[in-house]
């Protein structure tokens, strides 16, 4: 029995006829050639979030981001005028990676006045201009103006720093984000900057982890033992239904809106003892921070339900912004490293705690997140290995898994369009 209203089409999925209701083929998560084509078809033409402005607090602040899926590394830096710039992380002399410490493959951050290459000492200013060449007189008519760092397109929305590695982006960042941006403009992201960051190397295709967090159908079962016994039985019996789903145009961003504000719970026996004492848990600290949340932006709680607890926005292709009713948010990023692996990042953002008790309550929320994520992450490796067996190719997805269906559909469209265009080019050229 449905506890929450569905669209008049009868299901969320049928509201979007392009998705169909057939079983979904998961070869897109195991096929190496498919993964090769995703690099250009999906990632090179998308705006990708690589961090937040707080990581670039002042002139000279920088961080690097490894983009294995695009076979590059980029530097983000705040220049002398306060503008955020992005460059490929490569020295123009002989191709050494410009910014790194100890391990070339690890991301780096800090503050500097200029970038100096470890290899031969070439130097670049914060605007990317080549300013110094060691033994310049040994070169042959070297025009330093022609050897600046190679820029990448950078833009910022609500403090989120995005890059686009296309030669010319098809849309501005604002156009790309579309209803995600208009729906969330004005949310106080900039007042929630107390950050916990987790990373994990996951032995599964990047889309499989997005699938895992894009549906909560699994929650009452996989995470059953996180709840006290009686509550767990009740949750498993009822199952999960979202309040609302929506898929946006023209880019396949989406949102799932859910109930679950347990802050505080109606019955203290519903939660574990430490949650009652610290007034905190998976949904975050029960006591809201001193941030004005009285007027939420229009994209939040789209069904206007009084039991609203959280909205999870899937920012295509590989980012999630998950906003919790009690006044904090988190982001997930899924950075592909091979057909069967990716680097997962989770950032939890809270208001600066006013006192040590609030910090201790936050700790419970963060640790609870990790306990859940460990269960999710390991399950994915079990899925990946069996998909690779090839024994079963197609899988039935239910209405509560509409965002999984949407993700695979959107990637398939892009890859097939890319392949068709390439075939045309080959035909014309050949």
């Amino acid at each position, binding site marked *: 029995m449905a506890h929450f209203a569905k669209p008049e089409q009868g299901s969320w999925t049928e509201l979007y006829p392009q998705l169909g209701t057939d079983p979904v083929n998961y070869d897109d998560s195991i096929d190496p050639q498919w993964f090769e084509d995703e690099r250009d078809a999906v990632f090179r033409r998308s705006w990708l979030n690589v961090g937040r402005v707080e990581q670039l607090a002042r002139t000279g602040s920088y961080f690097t981001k490894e983009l294995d899926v695009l076979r590059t590394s980029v530097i983000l830096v705040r220049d002398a005028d306060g503008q955020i710039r992005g460059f490929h992380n490569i020295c123009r002399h002989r191709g050494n990676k410009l910014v790194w410490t100890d391990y070339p493959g690890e991301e780096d951050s800090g503050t500097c006045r200029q970038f100096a290459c470890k290899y031969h000492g070439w130097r670049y200013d914060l605007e990317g201009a080549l300013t110094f060449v060691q033994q310049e007189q040994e070169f042959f008519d070297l025009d330093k103006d022609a050897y600046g760092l190679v820029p990448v397109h950078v833009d910022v929305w609500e403090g989120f720093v995005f890059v686009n590695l296309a030669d010319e982006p098809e849309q501005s960042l604002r156009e790309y984000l579309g209803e995600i941006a208009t729906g969330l403009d004005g949310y106080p992201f900039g007042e929630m900057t*107390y*950050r*916990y*960051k*987790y*990373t*994990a190397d*996951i032995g599964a295709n990047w889309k499989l982890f997005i699938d895992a967090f894009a549906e909560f159908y699994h929650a009452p079962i996989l995470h059953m*033992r*996180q709840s006290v016994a009686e509550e767990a039985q009740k949750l498993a019996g009822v199952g999960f239904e979202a309040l609302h789903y929506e898929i946006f145009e023209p880019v396949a961003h989406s949102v799932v809106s859910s109930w679950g504000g347990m802050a505080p719970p109606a019955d203290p026996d519903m939660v*574990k*003892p*430490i949650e009652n*004492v*610290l007034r905190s848990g998976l949904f975050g600290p029960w006591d809201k921070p001193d941030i004005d949340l009285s007027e939420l932006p229009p994209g939040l709680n789209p069904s206007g339900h009084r039991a609203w607890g959280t909205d999870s926005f899937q920012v295509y292709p590989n980012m999630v912004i998950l906003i919790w009713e009690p006044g904090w948010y988190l982001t997930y990023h899924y950075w592909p490293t091979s057909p069967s692996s990716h680097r*997962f990042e*989770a*950032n939890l953002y809270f208001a*600066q*705690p*006013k*006192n*040590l*008790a*609030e*910090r*201790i*309550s936050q*700790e*419970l929320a*963060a*640790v*609870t997140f*990790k*306990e859940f*994520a*460990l*269960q999710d*992450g*390991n*399950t994915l*490796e079990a899925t990946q290995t069996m998909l690779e067996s090839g024994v079963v190719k197609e899988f039935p997805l239910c209405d509560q898994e509409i965002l999984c269906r949407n993700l695979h559909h959107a990637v398939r469209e892009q890859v097939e369009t890319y392949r068709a265009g390439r075939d045309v080019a080959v035909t014309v050229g050949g």
Partner: protein
Amino acid sequence: MADARLPTEFADLEEWSDWILPTEAERYTKRLGSTMAEMQAFYDAAFPRLEAIQAYAAGVPLGDGPVDDLDRNLAHLAFSLVTVSFPVEAWKQPHVPDSGAAAIPLVVEPGF
């Protein structure tokens, strides 16, 4: 006590000072390396004091100056209690069930 590591109000928890660990990695490693009996003993001693810890900690402001070392230690002890609460209250074993070799380390831990 000359070598007190916790505020005097919490002298009874000094014997658990090996759980005063400043990083999430240390706390999680100690959890995985402990028996359930060891964690239950720490929990049984510290959990009944958690309300008092929160009442005390509410009087320690953050964000406008350095935090006293003893207060910081008290918070790190409380963080360890949070870490062991999952094995004690939910899992009945040190590691998360079905998590195998999966690891999700905290790489940016907000300071105070």
